[in-house]
């Protein structure tokens, strides 16, 4: 997916004017956040699990070479084949070559953010394959020719009325069809796709080093179908998806599903240990695992940002983020939106084109509080901001303003002089206790959405010196 992170401000303005989008995103994030809160409250040891999962993930990243080597050995020992992609181009050529070597014409896909990251659908369509997204949300997006706007709820930005109209236009269902009718229509169409596709592509939630298992978490069953019905299965994973032991899985599942959708467990969890065995009656003949770097090793090498690779893609930070709630995911301009996107995207794409994303935060800290693997998201947002300034990426106006502030703050006489001047001037704009002056550049932006109470005529210091000190 081609990043458009540089146009963040334009995207944001567009999103803020889109009442349907904001309503849909706010309703959905509120619902998911509430379900998470209830699920966490009913699990007394959740904090211990979170602490432990964070420690295990941090440890795994510190020894990632070792765990990946173990994963590869065991996985191949069980009959799977592992491929290595340094970047998105290599990943695409691995998958397209696999499809060509198997003579595949039709591919079914389970939801994978990594496949969005590398632009897999376009590449496969480019060699003449039919590619069908099978997650209901992703299928809707494919019909609408859009990309996901949330890590786990890809079509969170659309209302059910919009989806009903889309299905009406594309698939001929009634214009006011209910979600049940829409889902049944999708089931019927996609069922045929599952039974005729030669190859299925999935992501990976957890790759288990000691057993070579690929773990996939879902509610619909499309991942089970994608990984069971076609003759070939190709799984894509970012190099950070590893956990050391199969016995670690219950704790990771417990924090993932509760954080993502507030479920104790999802409808389905597939633990794939290898391709079909001789005695099996079904399942894919061949199982391929493509491990993708695409910028991740640079994040791993960065001692501060490394923590961001603990992410298990639950989406809780998106739901908790007051900025995401207002603008949705597309505004961020790349695959990973919300606080984790604002931290990860600069790591993967470089800060130059993504410098605005870490600014899209009030630093309220909600994302850090909900993260199931305790990624210090607020600290990392500040770290990116600090680096932006260091690298001279901050806007000139911001540099000048902060420079002036810093100069004044270090010179007490100038400080009191200029604040007195500011106070005096502000009285010229004072209209019944509030500032007017929408013609002034900075004030205009503020007054568009909010009032600005006029500063008091006399400062606290003046009051203090003028006798407040002696009052009891």
């Amino acid at each position, binding site marked *: 997916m081609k990043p458009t992170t540089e146009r963040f401000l334009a995207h944001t303005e567009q999103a803020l004017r889109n009442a349907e989008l904001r309503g849909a995103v706010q309703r*959905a994030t509120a*619902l998911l956040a509430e379900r998470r809160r209830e699920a966490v409250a009913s699990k007394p040891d959740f904090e211990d*699990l979170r602490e432990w999962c964070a*420690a*295990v993930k941090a*440890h*795994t990243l*510190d020894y*990632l*070479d*070792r765990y*990946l080597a173990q994963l*590869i050995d065991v996985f191949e020992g069980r009959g799977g084949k592992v491929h*290595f992609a*340094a970047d998105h181009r*290599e990943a695409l050529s691995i998958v397209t070559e696999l499809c060509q070597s198997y003579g595949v014409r039709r591919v079914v896909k389970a939801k994978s953010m990594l496949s969005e990251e590398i632009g897999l659908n376009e590449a496969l369509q480019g060699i003449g394959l039919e590619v069908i997204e099978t*997650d*209901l949300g992703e299928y809707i997006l494919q019909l609408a020719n859009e990309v996901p706007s949330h890590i786990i*709820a890809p*079509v969170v930005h*659309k*209302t*059910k009325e919009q989806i009903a109209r889309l299905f009406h236009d594309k698939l001929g269902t009634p214009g006011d069809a209910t*979600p049940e009718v*829409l*889902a*049944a229509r999708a*089931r019927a169409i*996609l*069922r045929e796709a*599952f039974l005729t596709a030669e190859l299925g592509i999935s992501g990976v939630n957890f790759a288990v080093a000691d057993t070579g*298992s690929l773990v996939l978490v879902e*509610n*619909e*069953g499309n991942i*089970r179908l994608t990984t*069971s*019905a076609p003759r070939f299965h190709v799984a894509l994973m970012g*190099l950070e998806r590893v956990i050391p032991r199969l*016995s*670690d*899985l*219950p704790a990771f599942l417990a924090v993932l599903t509760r954080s993502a*959708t507030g479920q104790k*467990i999802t*409808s*389905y969890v*597939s633990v*794939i*240990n*290898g391709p*079909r*065995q001789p*005695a*099996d*009656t079904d399942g894919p003949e061949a199982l391929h695992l493509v491990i993708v*770097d695409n910028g991740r090793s*640079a994040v*791993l*090498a960065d001692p501060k940002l490394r923590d961001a690779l603990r992410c298990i893609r639950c989406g809780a930070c998106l739901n908790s983020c007051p900025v995401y709630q207002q603008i949705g995911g597309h505004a961020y301009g790349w695959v990973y939106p919300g606080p984790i996107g604002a931290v990860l995207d600069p790591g993967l794409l470089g800060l130059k084109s993504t410098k605005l994303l870490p600014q899209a935060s009030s630093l309220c800290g909600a994302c850090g509080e909900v993260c199931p693997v305790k990624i210090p998201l607020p600290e990392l947002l500040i770290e990116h901001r600090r680096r932006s300034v260091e690298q001279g990426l901050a806007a000139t106006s911001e540099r000048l303003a902060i420079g002036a502030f810093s100069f004044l703050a270090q010179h007490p006489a100038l400080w009191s002089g200029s604040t007195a001047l500011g106070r005096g001037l502000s009285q010229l704009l004072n209209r019944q206790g509030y500032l007017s002056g929408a013609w002034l550049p900075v004030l205009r932006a503020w007054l568009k959405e909010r009032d600005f109470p006029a500063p008091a005529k006399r400062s606290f210091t003046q009051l203090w010196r003028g006798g407040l000190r002696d009052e009891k």
Partner: protein
Amino acid sequence: MTRSEFLTRISSALGRQPGQVAEAPPPPLPCPPEEDRSVLMTRFVTEHERVGGKVYIVPDWAAAKTVVERLMSEAGTSCYARTREEFLDQVLEGLALPEAATAAEAEVGVSGAAFGLAETGTVVLSSNFGRLATLLPMTHVILLPASRLVAGLHQVLETGALPSAWMLATGPSRSADIEGALVTGVHGPGRVFVVLIENF
């Protein structure tokens, strides 16, 4: 990229030589305790029905057969699909309905389960006995001997031998992708029944 180029890149990102001795990972969390079968049964039923499945508790295989026959006639099915566990024979033998040629044609899929997880009301299906019969039909009937109930996933993962896939299934297929509205039976079975056989 080759395996060694890929791993070397990661080793150098971590700032050390490949193969360097690693610290041990944090010790595993303690395994939740095993419980009495009656406790496990109660919890399994509560959890499974909480997410929209239905559990029938029967004393023996003959009673199980009666329930399966009734479920099939309620589903109005003309044929069924099944997985390959031998113990299913005693339930499915002598049924008036034929077995479907492929799972895709069946409206009901009958399977066993390797385990039942009380903590979450989950059935653990093994690929050893077939995958599609538990997945394609709209109705899934699972025959679960009560002796296969365990406290949670920990107990399953400790058993050692791994099939090509474990599939953990907990209630019906569901989606909330359309404005959070819960829809069941999106891709997998929309109706799930567990027949729990108390004395086996």
